């Protein structure tokens, strides 16, 4: 079978003109782009990275990372991780159920409407989103007052919009639409023939889901879970506008550090940011790898 090749070829043909050293001029064309990236993406990150390994007078040190182990910082990381993970998981599950309902389920009629709305909602964040939830579940929010009218006082029951639960509920507004946007194509990528082939080989519907559909979707589901996690982990504006900075998250702490060196240690601030970037980098890389695998499976 010599005629059958399996090579995964790049869509771009190999460069015909770009011979090795094909003139400095050729390479000059991409210099502005990389210069921009260097100045406004790489340099700021590197500055923080280098700073995190330096003492005030520029000596190398690991103290900044050692000093992360103090209650306010540990709590900030813990809160950030918790909120991010909870909303990522919630967003993944709820988003999946909704996407399933409009693709393989029986609510296909509202598919395009849901996708449009998800596109908007996943971009609707920051201050206006925070205010929308204040108007809904704040102390004089619509739902709060309506529930009060029927005898349920949310705030007396221990609920507060400005707490972990309230923040999570707010984040969910941009979390699950993102899940819908990413998982819908994956669900639509499940080929009818896979189900039929499975049935043909004697599989029940449950076995089809267990052995084929779920494993095929798993990279996508895990990848999206991680992406949602990163999405919430880096959020600042929404949390800041909602709580006025009273909730202790990593992003909020970095913000306070920038405004007034609340940690009384610039190096520690850098270490805080570097820790955050590290978590983001790992998450986004994992997401990319998982998404690549998923695409390979779902293609054609």
């Amino acid at each position: 079978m010599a005629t059958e090749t399996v090579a995964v070829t790049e869509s771009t043909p190999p460069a015909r003109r770009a011979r090795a050293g094909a003139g400095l001029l050729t390479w000059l064309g991409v210099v502005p782009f990389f210069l921009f990236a260097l100045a406004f993406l790489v340099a700021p990150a590197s500055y923080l990275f280098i700073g995190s390994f330096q003492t005030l007078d520029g000596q190398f040190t690991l103290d900044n990372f050692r000093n992360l182990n103090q209650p306010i910082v540990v709590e900030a990381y813990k809160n950030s991780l918790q909120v991010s993970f909870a909303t990522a998981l919630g967003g993944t599950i709820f988003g999946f159920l909704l996407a399933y309902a409009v693709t393989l389920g029986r609510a296909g009629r509202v598919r395009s409407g849901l996708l449009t709305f998800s596109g908007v909602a996943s971009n609707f964040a920051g201050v206006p989103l925070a205010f929308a939830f204040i108007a809904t579940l704040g102390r004089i929010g619509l739902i709060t007052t309506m529930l009060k009218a029927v005898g349920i006082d949310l705030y007396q029951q221990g609920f507060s919009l400005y707490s972990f639960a309230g923040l999570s509920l707010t984040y969910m507004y941009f979390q699950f639409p993102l899940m819908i946007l990413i998982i819908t194509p994956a669900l639509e990528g499940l080929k009818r023939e896979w189900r039929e082939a499975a049935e043909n080989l004697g599989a029940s519907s449950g076995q089809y889901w267990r052995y084929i559909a779920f494993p095929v979707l798993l990279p996508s589901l895990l990848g999206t879970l991680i992406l949602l996690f990163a999405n919430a982990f880096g959020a600042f504006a929404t949390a800041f506008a909602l709580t006025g900075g009273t909730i202790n998250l990593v992003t909020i702490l970095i913000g306070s550090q920038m405004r007034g060196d609340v940690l009384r240690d610039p190096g520690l601030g850098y270490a805080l940011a570097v820790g955050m970037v590290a978590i983001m980098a790992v998450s986004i890389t994992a997401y990319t790898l998982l998404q690549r695998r998923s695409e390979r499976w779902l293609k054609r």
Partner: protein
Amino acid sequence: MAFLEIDQLHKQFGDLPAVSGFDVDVEQGEFLSLLGPSGCGKTTALRMIAGFERPTSGTIHLNGRDITNQPPNRRHIGMVFQSYALFPNMTVADNVGFGLKLKGMTPADARRRAGELLELIQLPDKGGSYPYQLSGGQQQRVALARALAIEPQVLLLDEPLSALDAKIRVELRAEIRRIQQQLHITTLYVTHDQEEAMSLSDRVVVMNKGFIEQVGPPFEIYNYPRTAFVAHFVGQLNVMPVRVVDAAAGRVALGEQTIILEPPLAANGQAVTLAVRPEELELGAAEGHNNLRGLVESVNFLGSIVRVRVAVDGATLSADLFNERLLTLPKAGEAVTINFPAHAAWVLEEQG
């Protein structure tokens, strides 16, 4: 009683009848093709046999058992899809062994059996590969092995070669026939490619617009098409509008020229359509044959055959000549005579 008995199968999609009066008996070990243009109902018929579509009326019996309303996962019918439909998350061996695993076979046994099947499809080293690492042709072989692994009573193939390159298609075609004969498995094969259907099948079912046009061995379908549709769809066909001159003598007129056919014919004076296959035509005049004069329109060299198109009174006829090195090709514009024997031509019945 035949092994697979399909009686008066009918399928309606809304107002649209997709398959009407589908009635075929298939013998054990037979290779049957469903041939027809797209939308003729061949795939729908196959999917009803597989159990993916429920017939509006009619019955399907397999080995004496009524399977008309049985769910697909209980039928023991193997299926190969046009798009391969290999499970992307499983290795080749796991794909092949999937049906066995569901049957409760131990992993070791399933692996051994999968190995045997990979030998059968001549991909013994690919057990650990994933589908995306294989070429289309290889994937389709694996899909075949997967369908065969469960030792189905009937094997269904839905346009299995359509997505492949021409060369691979021919290779794999031979492979499918070899395996089918080796296992002596009853096979239904859906295709729109007449060459595929002809070369593979014991019998061909030609379908059009949901109806069966003709059922028979390839030789019969090709040489004795029962309807105009079959005649046109299968192979190349020359058609000539002629007028019956003398029904008893089998004499008809094509413009100014006379053609003798085998009687009986329709009444004198009636216009009918005459059909003859291009390979029945020869260049030059021949004693006792129908000789027609015309002008060469074009000459197409196709390799093993040379197709010469000749304009005669009121019709353009193609003559397929076998290539040989000593052949002198006529030139366009040249006046030539072509001939065919009386028994080679037949009157097409009205299309309907």
